[in-house]
């Protein structure tokens, strides 16, 4: 990428994410934007939550389809991508260990323990996939149930951490956890479907499940927007910023068109017959759309004014 292209693309991103700066004298007098977890180094947290959850989603869906490569990809995505970006956000990896010392303190600490348990149990589950001489423990039913529960907890981790922040009504919305679960499963299923397609598997049943996941994702997304819009004045303001305000462009292009409309179109095109290339294209759109959905949700969170 040349310097000029890079400047153009970063300028385009800045235009999409720009925000009218709140004058300092209006701080906490008007709804004030949450910045710590999305501006500057906060961007790493957005990416860390995303990759951890999508990796867990891939792992979760692989549990049902017994797709060995999915176990490995999901495990690596959660720990290597999600974990490393988490470390980057915290700045000093040595300090992260302190979080493990007090698991009962907060949602964030409990989430870190879930990641640790996922790392250890997942490692023993995927070990046979790496060394052909070992028996495939992935078929062990109880082990799968335990890993399934851990995956669901991990999928929820980021949004659960956000959900407990009562000060940000758009995050403490009831619908945010169901939306996070289905979003992790939906994006994870797209990865697994694509890789299974590459492996030459019959995708007819999987595609049917994909349609179900997509429909539920769409419903939960609409319920979240509608519910939050009617929740409180500040939540209403947050949603207005999303659908009419500074982030409307990003929301409609990134979330509605890329994340929902195009995947819907591709799903309809593939109705009755699957095509690995189209599944790949849909995967790319779903991936980008979900990433931007999380970005806009983190960006459009506002604190209630104090006076």
């Amino acid at each position, binding site marked *: 990428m040349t310097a000029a292209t890079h400047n153009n693309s970063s300028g385009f991103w800045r235009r999409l994410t720009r925000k009218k700066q709140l004058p300092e004298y209006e701080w906490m007098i008007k709804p004030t934007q949450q910045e710590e977890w999305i501006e500057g180094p906060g961007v790493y947290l957005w990416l860390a939550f995303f990759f951890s959850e999508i990796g867990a989603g891939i792992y979760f869906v692989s549990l049902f389809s017994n797709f060995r490569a999915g176990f490995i990809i999901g495990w690596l995505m959660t720990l290597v991508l999600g974990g490393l970006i988490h470390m980057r956000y915290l700045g000093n990896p040595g300090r992260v260990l302190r979080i493990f010392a007090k698991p009962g303190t907060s949602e964030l600490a409990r989430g870190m323990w879930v990641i640790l348990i996922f790392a250890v149990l997942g490692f023993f589950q995927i070990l046979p996939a790496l060394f052909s001489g070992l028996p495939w423990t992935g078929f062990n039913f109880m082990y799968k149930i335990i890993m399934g529960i851990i995956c669901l907890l991990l999928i929820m981790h980021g949004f659960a951490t956000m959900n407990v*922040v*009562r000060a940000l009504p758009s995050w403490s919305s009831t619908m945010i956890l169901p939306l996070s679960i289905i979003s992790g499963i939906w994006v994870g299923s797209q990865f697994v479907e694509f890789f299974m397609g590459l492996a030459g598997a019959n995708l007819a049943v999987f595609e049917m499940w994909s349609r179900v996941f997509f429909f539920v994702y769409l419903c939960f997304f609409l319920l979240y927007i509608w519910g939050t819009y009617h929740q409180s004045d500040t939540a209403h303001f947050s949603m207005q910023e999303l659908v009419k305000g500074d982030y409307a462009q990003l929301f409609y292009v990134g979330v509605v068109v890329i994340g929902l409309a195009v995947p819907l179109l591709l799903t309809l095109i593939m109705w009755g017959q699957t095509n690995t290339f189209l599944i790949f294209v849909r995967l790319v759109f779903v991936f980008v759309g979900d990433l931007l959905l999380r970005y806009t949700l983190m960006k459009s969170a506002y604190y209630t004014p104090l006076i």
Partner: protein
Amino acid sequence: MPRWGMVVDVKRCIACWSCAISCKEEHFLPPKVFWNRVLISERGKYPASRKVIYPVLCNHCSEASCVEACPTGATYQREDGIVLVDYDKCVGCRACLVACPYQQRTYYDQEKKDAEYFPGQGKTQFELLGEEIYPFQVGTVMKCNFCVERIDEGLEKGLAPGQDRDATPACVISCPVGARVFGDLDDPGSEVSQLIKVHSAKQLRPEFDTDPAVYYID
């Protein structure tokens, strides 16, 4: 054990910012960091509008969101209700900062450490002294501590916080109009308890269910 708290009479406040400045001076706070702020707004519509001034600081809530959000126990509450940050335990995740509905916390990064009150002129003797005797740790979160050093030292000397200047938070003793009163909320005879009772003082945004220790008379 007392529960320290504050009452702010917003009708007396003249928005002179001396609380904010004395706080910065007391704790050697770097540029752009405030543990005390003054919010100025208006209520109602012209011609029936009126100006409202609310000095805000950490509320040292009983049910503090920041304490609940801290994954390491770095943010903790003492028995006397003061919420403090242990910089040695803080990992800089900023969960407390996001969780605080009053937005009274600041993340202390390298940029803030390097900031100078007179940019390009080097640090003043005051700033250098602050780094020596009141050091903050880069990558941790800082906030108002109700001038806990003054309270603890005052109590050791047998002084009464809220009554004796040396044992009272800097923002209280520097207020030129006496808009701030500090004392024990658990003592029904204390000045703060009496003011709350007589004037029906209110907490800021009680709907957050955090039970702040700072009350406002308006």
